[in-house]
C-alpha cells in the first residue's frame, strides 16, 4: 500500500510539472523594431542604413 502511495505521488508530481510547464509555454516577445531591409547588411545583424 505504501509503495502504491509513493508511486502515485511520483506520478502526480510528474503530471503537475509537465502540465504546468506546457500551459505556461514560452514567452511571446515583442515585434522587432528593426525594419524590413532595403540595403545590403555588411555582416549578419549589421544593418547599415534603413529607409
Amino acid at each position, binding site marked *: 500500500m505504501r509503495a502504491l502511495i*509513493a508511486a502515485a505521488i511520483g506520478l502526480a508530481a510528474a503530471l503537475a510539472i*509537465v502540465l504546468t510547464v*506546457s500551459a505556461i509555454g*514560452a514567452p*511571446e516577445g515583442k515585434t522587432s523594431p528593426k525594419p*524590413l531591409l532595403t540595403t*545590403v547588411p555588411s555582416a549578419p545583424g549589421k544593418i547599415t542604413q534603413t529607409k
Partner: protein
Amino acid sequence: MRRKASLVLLAFAVFFGALSPLLRWYAFPRLAKIPPSQYQEAVLEAKNATLIDYATMQSKTVPKVTVVQTLKGNVEAAKEIEKSAGKDVVVWDTLSYVQGPDGKMVSQIPERYIFDAHSQAPVHATGEMVDGDPVQRKGIEFKWPFLTEKRDYEYFDFQARTSAPIHYKGTQKFHGLDVYYFEQTVPWTKVPYPKKMPLPGIDSSTLEKTTGTSLWYTTTRKFWIDPVTGAPVNGEEVNQEEMRGGTLLGGRDKVTVFAGDVKMRDDYVNHTVDLVKKNRVLVLLLTSYLPWGFLGLALVLLALSLWLEARSRRPSDPPPTVTERLDPVIA
C-alpha cells in the same frame, strides 16, 4: 529507515519514469513552436548574373546581383488572428529586396505568411498576401516543420504563387551537421510583374495589359534542412526570368530579365549554421536527451529502491533455534 528511503526512491523512479514519455509526447508538441517575434535577415548573391537594363531593354552580364531577404514576426497581428484561429499562430512579414551591381533596386516583393506555430501548416486569414495580392498558401514556405521527415513536402513559390512538391533528395553533411537536401523545379511559368520595379513612369501592374509583354520565370530551388529544427542552413536558386512577346521588346520574342545562380553569402551560411546548432540542442533536449536521461535515471532509482526494500526485509539477527525438546502432547 531503509523502508522509508526505498519508498522515496520509488516515488522518484515513478516521477522520472513518467516524465520521460510525458516530455516527448505531451510537452514537446506543445512547447516546440516558432516564436512569434522572430526577426531574421539573409543575404544571397548571384555572381556573374544576367540582368536587364530597363533603360535600353537589353540584358547584360553584371558582376553581382544581391537579394536581401528579411523576415519579421508581427506579434500583434498574430495575437489578433489567434483569437479566431484558436491556435498558436505566427505572422511573418517578409521582404525580398533585389539590388543590382550599382546598388539600385531591381525589384522588391513583400509577403505576409501566416502559419501554425507548431506544425508550420498555413493558416488562412485576412492579410495573407504576396506583393499586395491576396493568396491562399498550401504547404510550407521558408521553414520546414520540427523533426523534418525524409519525404516530399508541398512548397509555396512566391513568384508563381502556387505550391508544388519539393523533393527529398538525400542526406548530406553540411558544416558538421547531417542535413536533408530538398530540391524543387518550377517549370517556365507566367508570373505577375513585381509591383515595385525600376521602371519610371510605368505602372507594372498594368504593364502586361497595355503592352502585351508578359513575365516568365523558372527556377530550381535547393534547400539544405536541419531535420531537428526544420530550419534551412543553406539555400540556392538557379533562377531565370524572361519578358516575352508584346510591344515592349522592340520586335524581339524574348529578353532575359534575370539569369543567375543565387547562393547564400558565406557569412550568412556560417551565422545560420551557428544559430541552428544552438536551437537544435533545445529541441533535442525535449525529444531525446531528457526523455532518455530520465528513463535511465528512473531505472537506476527503481533498482536502488528494490535493493533497499530487499535489504530491509532481510532479518538482521539469525532466527532463534529450537533447543528445548518438546514433549509430545498426549490427549
